[in-house]
């Protein structure tokens, strides 16, 4: 059976997302290892001074480009593909999607100018009253609004499909992608409010001051679901693509996979206070409630862990896999796309463990803003997500361009190098955090660093060096593939796993939108409403801006 044909124009459109994403990763990843090298005592920043003024400017570039630009562009491209291919129908209003995409591109360029000229060295959390140049906030707004517009393009496409297919279950990859898009639209209301009501008018000189505690609260309304916006596309790939790629496995439970995505929609947003456990302006009772809800959102990840591993096992057993663990060897490790995603998944398990520790209310007193935190999110967003996206691109780029993947062997080496480098980097960061090392500090220069941290700091640098090598190979493979003269004979098969269970048996209530959306909004109002109401009622715009970098 011939697979659904995505039009050349749409392939180009999806591909242009990948292009921006990978360019951002190329620049942003340059600075990651520089931070790690600094920790180890190999400080290159003095030599970069004509271009990059400080460690913190480098850290801002790294955070904004890797955590915000690489992810958002890759995700919007991948979700767009999933909706088109899943629904087997072209975009309803391609112009809408294009407008959104170009808004995002203009936004990135607008924000890049102040960042690169040291006018916005505020890191990717841009906590006021650190005050960046207005163009930084305008740029971020354009990226967010552009992603909304692209999302609306996906929603109208779904509505058109629904009209044409009144009684069908939404195919899983489209279904999960639409939920991810919706989650993003709801949660970004926080950061949009922060920028539009406070930071932008303030940076333009229209208002004198801001309320930093309220700004943080708006920020983390978006900040945690942002994590799920990064993660869910990787989950989509693990649920629906990876089992097929790794050994022709089937998706173990279509029902639970869908239920997991609904729970993510409901629970991702109303738990932002777990980033504010040690903020002075939020009552502990609400912090505790958010911590319990955070435990709740761990639950669909446990569902995901089971379903994904079982789907992989299903394929491996059919290919002769034996034993309690030996079947893992029967997975298709020689495919770089598979190796990358499996390794990403393995490290993500550990990211989940650290995340649960962070989420555990007062345990945050041990971990808050220590090196444990970047250690943790380099296992989640920088491996679980990023290495998976790299793996996805190993089939997606050949699919979109018709070019053969350049040197799959090198792609496999890339994945393993990322895995090894990240283990070394992340393990030492976690340990440093438990010993009390703060994050966001050039530790080589900090006067309070005891000698017992030194061996760990060197490991951070070694891990960074291996990651630098891996990142370089990734860019090389992408570039060489895009320019490859060798083309694929037939269109690359999109590896979508079938469901083990008959999809028409998936309950209908899992395909209805309204009740879940109302539930999501209601829960947000209940667990954010009282605190936000109080903070807004007592708003004190008493903080003028500071440029202290």
């Amino acid at each position, binding site marked *: 059976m011939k697979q659904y044909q995505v039009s050349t124009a749409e392939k180009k459109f999806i591909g242009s997302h990948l292009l921006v994403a990978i360019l951002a990763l190329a620049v942003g990843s340059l600075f990651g290892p520089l931070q790690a090298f600094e920790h180890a005592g190999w400080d290159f920043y003095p030599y970069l001074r004509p271009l990059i003024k400080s460690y913190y400017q480098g850290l801002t570039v790294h955070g904004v480009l890797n955590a915000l630009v690489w992810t958002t562009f890759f995700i919007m491209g991948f979700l767009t593909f999933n909706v088109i291919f899943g629904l087997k129908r072209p975009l309803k209003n391609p112009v809408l999607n294009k407008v959104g995409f170009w808004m995002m591109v203009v936004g990135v360029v607008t924000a890049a100018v102040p960042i690169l000229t040291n006018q916005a060295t505020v890191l990717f959390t841009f906590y006021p009253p650190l005050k960046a140049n207005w163009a930084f906030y305008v740029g971020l707004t354009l990226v967010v609004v552009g992603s909304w517009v692209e999302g609306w393009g996906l929603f109208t496409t779904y509505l058109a499909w629904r009209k044409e297919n009144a009684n069908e279950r939404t195919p899983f990859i489209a279904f999960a992608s639409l939920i991810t898009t919706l989650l993003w639209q709801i949660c970004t209301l926080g950061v949009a409010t922060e920028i539009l009501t406070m930071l932008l008018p303030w940076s333009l000189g229209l208002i004198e001051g801001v309320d930093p505690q309220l700004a943080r609260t708006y920020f983390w309304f978006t900040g945690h679901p942002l994590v799920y916006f990064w993660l869910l596309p990787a989950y989509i790939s693990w649920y629906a693509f990876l089992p097929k790629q790794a050994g022709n496995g089937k998706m173990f439970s279509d029902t639970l996979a869908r239920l997991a995505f609904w729970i993510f929609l409901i629970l991702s947003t109303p738990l932002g206070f777990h980033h504010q*456990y040690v903020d*002075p302006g939020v009552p502990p009772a609400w912090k505790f409630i958010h911590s319990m809800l955070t435990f709740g959102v761990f639950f669909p990840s446990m569902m995901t862990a089971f*379903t994904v591993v079982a789907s992989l096992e299903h394929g491996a057993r059919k290919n002769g896999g034996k034993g309690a663990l030996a079947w893992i060897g029967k997975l298709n490790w020689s495919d770089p796309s598979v190796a990358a995603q499996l390794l990403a998944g393995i490290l993500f398990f550990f990211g989940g463990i650290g995340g649960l520790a962070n989420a555990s209310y007062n*345990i945050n007193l041990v971990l*808050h803003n220590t090196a444990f935190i970047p250690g943790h999110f380099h296992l989640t967003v920088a491996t679980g997500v990023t290495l998976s996206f790299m793996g996805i691109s190993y089939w997606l780029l050949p699919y979109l361009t018709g070019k053969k993947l350049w040197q799959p062997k090198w792609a496999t080496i890339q994945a393993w190098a990322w895995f090894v480098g990240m283990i070394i980097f992340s393990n030492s960061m976690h340990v440093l955090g438990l010993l009390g090392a703060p994050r966001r500090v050039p530790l080589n220069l*900090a006067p309070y660093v005891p000698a017992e941290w030194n061996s760990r700091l060197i490991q951070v640098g070694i891990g960074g060096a291996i990651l630098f090598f891996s990142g370089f190979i990734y860019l090389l493979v992408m570039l060489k593939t895009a320019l490859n003269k060798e083309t694929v004979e037939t269109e690359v098969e999109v590896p979508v796993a079938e469901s083990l269970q008959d999809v028409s048996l998936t309950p209908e209530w899992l395909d209805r939108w309204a009740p879940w959306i109302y539930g999501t909004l209601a829960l947000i109002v209940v667990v954010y409403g009282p605190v936000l109401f109080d903070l807004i009622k007592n708003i004190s715009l008493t903080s003028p801006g500071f440029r202290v970098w």
Partner: protein
Amino acid sequence: MSTQKMHIDVYERNWLIFSAILLVLFATAVSVAAFGMGIQVPAPEQRVDPRTVATDPSSPWSNPGLREIAPGKYDAYILAHAIPNWEYLPKELTVPAGSVVTFYVTSSDVQHGFKIQNTNANFMVIPGQVSKLTIHFDKPGTYNYICTEYCGSGHGVMYGAITVTP
């Protein structure tokens, strides 16, 4: 619609039940530490005006430092600031072992952090707000307090120290 009952594999169902029990256990342990052992996170204390908090004579942070409020019990008013040179005021505190110190920390400019090494004091310092936690210093030694939130180019050198004398 009788065919549309939810089908869940028995292994998977048991896994989910087990996960739920595990999370309940963790939640219980956390609650015991919080409500039984008094290991709590900061609560709203008071609001201040960051523009005048360091200069207004009626503000305790215009004269930061230790106040002994009862034998062995202290209030420590600490001001964090990036301007002019990324430091805490005071930079050093000395208390005898066995002291109970309640920290009141605020900022006169940007956001900072405040983490006393080897204790559970670790919180945000936010302009306009006052962060408060109480720590029991039983073991003699030097406890650095370090800034844990990016506050500009001097963030990495911002710290102070509490000396606990025998």
